[in-house]
């Protein structure tokens, strides 16, 4: 739904609320949802609040030039990982790492994946994670000749339409679309038309995280949610119970990452507390975790943390920012 349509809906609802003031007695409000018991407060009992010098944070506009700088940093990170470093270390931003992994998958030999499955089933977390990237890549890819022909026809139609318009299509972009279409077909056709790549991707990111893969544990919250309930995903409608499984797993992986003292654990907690789909939404704690990650992280990790803080800061008063900064040092203590 477009943002405009959503605002129109809100406007209509808002008008009704303003008109009636509150729920009128003649309206029977059916099925009032009850808060789940699945959302539990994160355990911060070990973190003692300390009297530390406060670091004041300037409220910056979201979506400012920082976004561009962050993107440049990601490109630099990807270049730095030219050898496609597998280990998620304490300097690499998570998006850069995931992008580098995806690049490897695109140029892989299709025959590699049957070998990977044997390795993954034998308990190799790296192999399990590669399988996740493979299935995730193939989710939207053409897998039959019929698919490819239709996609080519669609691209051709776009080109023909563009010829009748004042702004012709970018030839490079067109060739790139064709290349990536054929590249994904080459790799993904082995799965067959009816293969459920969404379920397979979810299964292997979960397996990799269960086997202790840090990248999988860090990405699970974002990627698994997208597979289960993202735009165009239908897993949640076929298996509604996956929501509870997702919450349990995500909380469990966050605890494991925090226990390993990896800064990505702090960033994951910041994300979860900001969104509120695993733990109750709490902007102060979310900011505190992001701040803690910024303090101990370097390069890509710190940059990710600052990006998160720029986003959260708009939900906080100056007093709450001070409180969150104190809490950040308590978390690191």
């Amino acid at each position, binding site marked *: 739904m477009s943002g405009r349509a959503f605002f129109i809906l809100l406007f209509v609802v808002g008008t009704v609320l303003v008109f009636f003031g509150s729920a009128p007695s003649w309206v029977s409000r059916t*099925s009032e949802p009850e808060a789940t018991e699945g959302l539990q407060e994160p355990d911060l009992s070990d973190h003692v609040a300390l009297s530390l010098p406060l670091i004041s944070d300037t409220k910056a506009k979201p979506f400012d030039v920082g976004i561009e700088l962050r993107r440049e940093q990601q490109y630099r990170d990807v270049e730095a990982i030219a050898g496609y470093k597998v280990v998620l270390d304490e300097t690499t931003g998570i998006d850069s790492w995931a992008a580098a992994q995806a690049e490897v998958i695109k140029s892989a030999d299709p025959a590699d994946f049957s070998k990977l499955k044997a390795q993954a089933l034998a308990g190799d977390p790296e192999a399990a994670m590669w399988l996740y990237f493979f299935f995730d890549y193939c989710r939207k890819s053409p897998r039959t000749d019929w698919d490819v022909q239709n996609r080519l026809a669609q691209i051709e139609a776009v080109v023909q339409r563009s010829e009748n318009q004042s702004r012709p299509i970018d030839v490079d972009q067109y060739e790139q679309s064709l290349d990536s279409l054929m590249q994904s077909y080459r790799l993904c056709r082995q799965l067959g038309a009816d293969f459920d790549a969404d379920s397979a991707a979810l299964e292997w990111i979960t397996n990799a995280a269960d086997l202790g893969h840090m990248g999988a544990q860090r990405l699970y919250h974002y990627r698994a949610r997208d597979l289960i*309930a993202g735009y165009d995903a239908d897993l949640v409608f076929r298996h509604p119970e996956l929501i509870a499984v997702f919450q349990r797993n995500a909380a469990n992986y966050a605890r494991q990452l925090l226990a390993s003292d990896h800064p990505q654990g702090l960033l994951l907690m910041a994300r979860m507390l900001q969104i509120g789909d695993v733990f109750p*939404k709490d902007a102060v704690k979310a900011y505190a975790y992001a701040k803690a990650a910024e303090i101990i992280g370097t390069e890509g990790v710190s940059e990710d943390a600052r990006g998160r803080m720029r986003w959260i800061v708009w939900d906080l008063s100056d007093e709450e920012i001070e409180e969150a900064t104190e809490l950040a040092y308590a978390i690191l203590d």
Partner: protein
Amino acid sequence: MLNERNITEEKSSLITQEIEDLYAILELCSDTSDNDNMRTEALQWLHTSADLGHMGARRIYHFYGRWLVLGNGSALAFKYPGLVQEFQERSKVYADSILALGHVQAYVLLSEMYFAGDVYPRDFLKSYAYALAAEEIEGDQIENTTKMRLRRVEYRLSPTDRAEARELASTLVSQIP
């Protein structure tokens, strides 16, 4: 200044109107800072309106209800267990109630549902058939979104599937009360 940026006066006026609309919405919603609470309220009132028999609410429920439950950034489905199942049940009940009236919007709605696969299992053939039925009833008056869906689904179907869908569409139209 307008010419420099290649913005016509007409466009400029539209932009100004959009900005004014935005400010009006901002003023209206200034007391509702918690997005989740706002979504919960909106969903409850959509339920209430549909339950009271508002056919418009029943028609838009599948689209707006899904957005409120699971839309971009929404955590309602994660906060309230059973909300996804409730969305599915309500969608079916509301669609059936419109279908019982033989209204063309029921066919458009069912085409949406079979395409999305969020209430019934995804079925492009049925989605195509229901959209064709709507087209047969409405003729040139058919909505653009339904025309677009026909195009989107068509390319996924083999010629045999399309023929089967046409047959199903004719049966559906003949069954209108």
